[in-house]
């Protein structure tokens, strides 16, 4: 059996990769053979450390020493000093930016602070189908504490003091919502979990439900205790079968332990939960539409007030919170409002889970403190843009949000800053776009989604969005006019101002923010009929360069619509009126004579 004593971990994330990590890996391997250390030391390539700014990163195991900005010429010193002499190479240790002091050893805690997992604390840690593992990780302690040591009022006070705001998108203060529901008098009240996650590219809530279902059940029971409800309902879309299955297992186990049901923990408090299935309609994420859907009615929103806190499910006071909001609550009760309020910005406390998607290297689920910048999220945790392309924009808030650009990269992320920047927090989808993405086409993509998902109850949303979509379609087809651009903007404002619910009030946001940030691209589409990203097919032209064309006729023979003409051994020509932009000619040409403009 080999007895490897040291492992050298070299970051192979794309960020470090472009900063020479392959050379470092090779250099270490050479040196190890040179010094005959093969049976003691092993070099390994790892994934991204989420710390690309300081790359390339080298980590020594088992002592967890962390070297930053390592160059190939440092390898020999690391091997010589660290492994043979047992001394750290001081100059390569990470220096804390605040103190300028070297941070070594396993104390690299201070340096990897970019992510804190509160809502995701048990995801990927415990077995979600085993309640014992949840209990071992402080599970149901918060419920026990609330029922035994706190009153509903003091528990609500903790929620208010923590500064927790709704994670479903709106950002309404959770404690305040609970207080309003508590104040509503009725013989029956309900607590609802909104698990109708529908933004394209968002999967935060699904991950919480699949990885830590008990945290949601526990928080719903706490919510019931505070608001005076003994019945909880989880509204979840049927297209999340695994989440549903794990919720059911969790509910069954909680009942067996008596953590749901009658007389919970001997305190006389009764609370139980049921599941209600949705059919996957985006509008049902809106709380009034959600409630109607649960009642068996059409999933259409109604005007607020009355708010669900006063009159909701079956006309009774109903407190609706989102999955991620719930997942934070047991941790807040256990660790205290002050602890939670110490994380984040002045008006947005705690962390936010984001689903990173699009043209980014480390696609995945992250949880970051409020106040982190987009630059840190995209270029450090996310590992930067795929294939070293140029960053263009990031869409937050899904189809209701807006595009944030280069100029917003250093803005601290919180509810208010994102709105000021023309977007919104939304539920946490973050779709990153690069130079190959056309912003007009992007706006069209989101509009297509909204048109599909609009419930049709109010005309601004039903007809207005359709008209917006048609205009965008016209522009990407190359027949848009400058007048259309003004119409786009005006109609967007009308839809925002006159729609009944949040869906219509926010659906023009992608149009408005792309108009504001990328007006020049719209103008190009309209005036010179050009799509700089090469995305809008109708605006592309295949052209034959007469200098390179030798007249072999191969392209003409392969053109499916006979759009190419020309004599043998003479330069050919593409008739743009006939061309369907299939690209077959360019693929066949052996002389690089065909190009796109």
């Amino acid at each position, binding site marked *: 059996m080999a007895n490897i004593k040291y492992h050298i971990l070299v970051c192979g994330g794309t960020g470090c990769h472009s900063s020479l990590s392959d050379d470092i890996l090779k250099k270490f391997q050479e040196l190890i053979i040179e010094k005959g250390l093969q049976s003691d030391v092993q070099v*390994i390539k790892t994934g991204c450390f989420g710390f690309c700014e300081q790359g390339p990163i080298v980590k020594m195991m088992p002592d967890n020493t962390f070297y930053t900005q390592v160059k190939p010429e440092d390898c020999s010193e690391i091997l010589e000093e660290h492994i043979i002499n047992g001394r750290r190479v001081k100059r390569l240790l990470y220096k804390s930016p605040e103190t300028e002091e070297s941070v070594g050893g396993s104390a690299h805690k201070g340096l990897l602070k970019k992510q804190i997992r509160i809502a995701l604390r048990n995801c990927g840690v415990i077995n979600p189908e085993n309640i014992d593992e949840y209990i071992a990780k402080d599970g149901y302690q918060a419920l026990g504490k609330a029922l035994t040591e706190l009153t509903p009022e003091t528990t609500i006070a903790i929620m208010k003091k923590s500064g927790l705001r709704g994670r479903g998108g709106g950002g309404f203060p959770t404690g305040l919502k609970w207080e309003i529901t508590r104040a509503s008098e009725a013989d029956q009240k309900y607590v609802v979990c909104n698990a109708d996650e529908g933004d394209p590219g968002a999967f935060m809530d699904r991950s919480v439900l699949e990885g830590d279902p008990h945290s949601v059940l526990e928080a719903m029971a706490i919510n019931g205790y505070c608001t005076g409800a003994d019945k909880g309902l989880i509204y979840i879309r049927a297209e999340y079968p695994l989440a549903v299955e794990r919720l059911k297992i969790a509910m069954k186990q909680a009942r067996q332990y008596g953590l749901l049901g009658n007389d919970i923990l001997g305190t006389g408090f009764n609370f139980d939960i049921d599941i209600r299935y949705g059919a996957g309609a985006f509008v049902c994420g809106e709380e009034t539409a959600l409630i109607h859907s649960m009642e068996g009615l059409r999933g259409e929103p109604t005007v607020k007030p009355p708010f669900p806190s006063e009159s909701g499910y079956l006309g009774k006071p109903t407190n609706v919170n989102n999955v991620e909001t719930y997942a934070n609550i047991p941790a807040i009760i256990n660790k205290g409002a002050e602890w939670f309020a110490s994380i984040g910005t002045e008006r947005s406390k705690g962390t936010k889970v984001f689903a990173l998607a699009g043209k980014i290297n480390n696609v995945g689920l992250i949880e970051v403190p409020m106040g982190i910048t987009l630059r840190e999220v995209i270029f450090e945790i996310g590992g930067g843009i795929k294939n070293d392309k140029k960053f263009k924009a990031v869409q937050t808030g899904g189809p209701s949000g807006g595009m944030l650009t280069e100029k917003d990269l250093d803005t601290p992320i919180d509810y208010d800053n994102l709105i000021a920047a023309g977007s919104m927090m939304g539920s946490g989808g973050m779709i990153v776009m690069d130079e190959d993405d056309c912003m007009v086409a992007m706006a069209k993509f989101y509009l297509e989604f909204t048109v599909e998902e609009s419930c049709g109850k109010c005309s601004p949303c039903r007809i207005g969005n359709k008209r917006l979509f048609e205009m965008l379609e016209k522009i990407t087809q190359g027949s848009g006019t400058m007048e259309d651009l003004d119409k786009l903007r005006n109609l967007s404002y009308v839809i925002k101002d006159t729609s009944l619910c949040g869906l219509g009030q926010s659906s023009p946001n992608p149009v408005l923010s792309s108009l504001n940030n990328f007006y020049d691209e719209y103008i190009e589409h309209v005036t010179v009929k050009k799509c700089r990203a090469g995305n809008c097919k109708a605006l592309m032209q295949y052209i034959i360069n007469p200098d390179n064309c030798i007249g072999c006729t191969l392209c003409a023979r392969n053109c499916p619509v006979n759009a190419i003409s020309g004599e043998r051994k003479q330069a050919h020509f593409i008739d743009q009126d006939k061309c369907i932009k299939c690209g077959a000619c360019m693929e066949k040409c052996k002389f690089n004579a065909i190009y796109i403009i």
Partner: protein
Amino acid sequence: MMEKIKSLADLKKLQEHLRTTIGLREKSNEPYLRIQVKVAMATCGIASGAKEVMEVFIEEFTKRNIDAVVTQTGCMGYCYAEPTVEITKPGNDPIVFGYVDCKKASKIIDKYILNNELVDGIIPVNYETIDNH
């Protein structure tokens, strides 16, 4: 049938008990304690083959008579590197391996579990937990 927990004190007692049993598995230096393998099994992990990978671990452990516990867990967040697997050898920090297909699962058993050699594609932990925050 599990017994009902009748009070907060009972809940705390149960937690203490579970902590010691689970904690022993995770933290102790005792060599007779078992190796723990956690496979990330959210929808995304399963879609990229986590179930098959979990089966490989279970089969290989039985075949080679290796005393290890294989459990499922939720999403670890590293979608770009699914399926992901966390392995804790007694006395060592947990290590997360990414891009684990069936072939790589066998390789991890050969290299890391039996020989203490690492394999490429380790995912460094890049977040803080609430315990140390």
